């Protein structure tokens, strides 16, 4: 009986600790989060409590994708093969219909949340996809969604025709020597 009570007390400590993590982890940038992070993150990150619950928020993301160009140059800088243009995901601004590849939309968003990831992960991956490539240019392309007011008034226009396209980030990755990589 006493043993059960002791276990319940220990479990109660765990309950309080876990609920504290549940409440603080999604807002780790707050004062409470910053000051308690070293006590909570090792555990939270190991058991999967390290998530932000921001589905479609603060605002839903616009249509976006990665546009890339693969270059094939000789050491003197002359083109030895036509460059290859492409998009990631390959569907560009369309839905990925294959259930086997739907995770690629999440990969694209993961890469674009922090532009450094384009160089660290996406660039080397693209180099591997195109053997002989010397460098990769990558751009984050955003297609804005025409706002509702416009769509209501301009009945004859489609969403796509009222959308604006702009490039957000431009990165260049060298496939020959990763230390040579440059960005603009």
């Amino acid at each position, binding site marked *: 009986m006493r043993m059960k009570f002791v276990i319940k007390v220990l479990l109660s400590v765990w309950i309080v600790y876990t609920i504290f993590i549940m409440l603080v982890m999604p807002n780790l940038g707050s004062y409470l989060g910053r000051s308690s992070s070293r006590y909570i993150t090792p555990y939270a990150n190991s058991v*999967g409590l390290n998530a932000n619950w921001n589905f479609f928020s603060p605002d839903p993301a616009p249509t976006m994708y990665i546009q890339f160009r693969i270059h094939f140059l000789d050491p003197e800088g002359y083109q030895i093969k036509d460059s290859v243009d492409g998009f990631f995901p390959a569907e560009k601004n369309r839905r990925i219909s294959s259930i086997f590849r739907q995770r690629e939309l999440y990969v694209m968003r993961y890469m674009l949340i922090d532009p450094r990831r384009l160089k660290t992960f996406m660039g080397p991956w693209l180099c591997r996809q195109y053997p002989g490539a010397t460098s990769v240019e990558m751009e984050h392309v955003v297609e804005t969604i025409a706002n509702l007011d416009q769509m209501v008034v301009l009945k004859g226009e489609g969403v796509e025709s009222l959308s604006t396209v702009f490039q957000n980030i431009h990165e260049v990755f060298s496939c020959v020597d990763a230390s040579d990589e440059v960005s603009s």
Partner: protein
Amino acid sequence: MMQRLWKAWDQFWFSPQNLMGVALMRIVLCGTMFLSYLVRQWKMEYYSDLSWIPRSMALEAMGDLYRPLFLWSFWPDSLMSSMHILLVVLLGLLALGIGGRWIMWMAWILDMGFIQRNFAVNFGADIIAALFLFYLSFTQSCERLSVLNLFNNKKEFRQSDFISSMMIRMIQVQISVIYVYTGWEKLKGASWWDGTALWSVMANPQMTTMNFEFLRNIPWVIPLVAYMTILFEIYFPAMIVSKKMRLSWLVMGALFHLGIAIFIGLWNFAFVMVSTYFLFIDPIELRLKIVSKWENLRKGFRF
């Protein structure tokens, strides 16, 4: 005073509960994960050095503040396919009610291994499902609605032990926190205040299952659903505590997730979230309600 407080705390967290809800949750959660990961089996290159994230950078990929102490994927990449088959089999067995805490712990460790090995390919539903599986793995989730009970002709069922009860409560708290946070986050967004956020989703061809441009002809629906979404999410914990409002809120939640599943194609997410709803329903009370409604209906038809 302290004794009274402890008694209330003990009652809330540790008192025995009917295990039917947790069994229903197990079926929906593990069944969803089983199907989702069965599909993933055809993309095992995601979990090799051929993917975007090589093994040597798996931890680095997770960002400084969100980096775990170690990788749960203790097996080499060459065994990824075999370990994934094992995960799918374990989830299938658990959905059928074969297994128990040890099997579920194994499934959770394998699942975390895959989540951490390539953090970039995770759906939101994978993360939430893993979290719920973690809590569920401490419960007697296979006590009821197990195929083994059919073979053993089991008629008498235990109530939950105090650890299961505690974890059932933790899942209830966790789902409430998820809803509240996502509601609060929406309040930070100008388009949610403006009421047009859902238009940004429905008009985004990357996100939707079909063309929803026709919504421009009934534009008032968009802010209405957007504001209802925020109200549903923020007030979820309060309404779920209220016995009067609980069932209505759960029905609203089920419809809300059904909408997300049909229009945005997030079926996994819908099932994972709704799986927790069974923990808010008293199976005996629900049965009585359904039976009495059915009886009333029958009487109505008779006259």
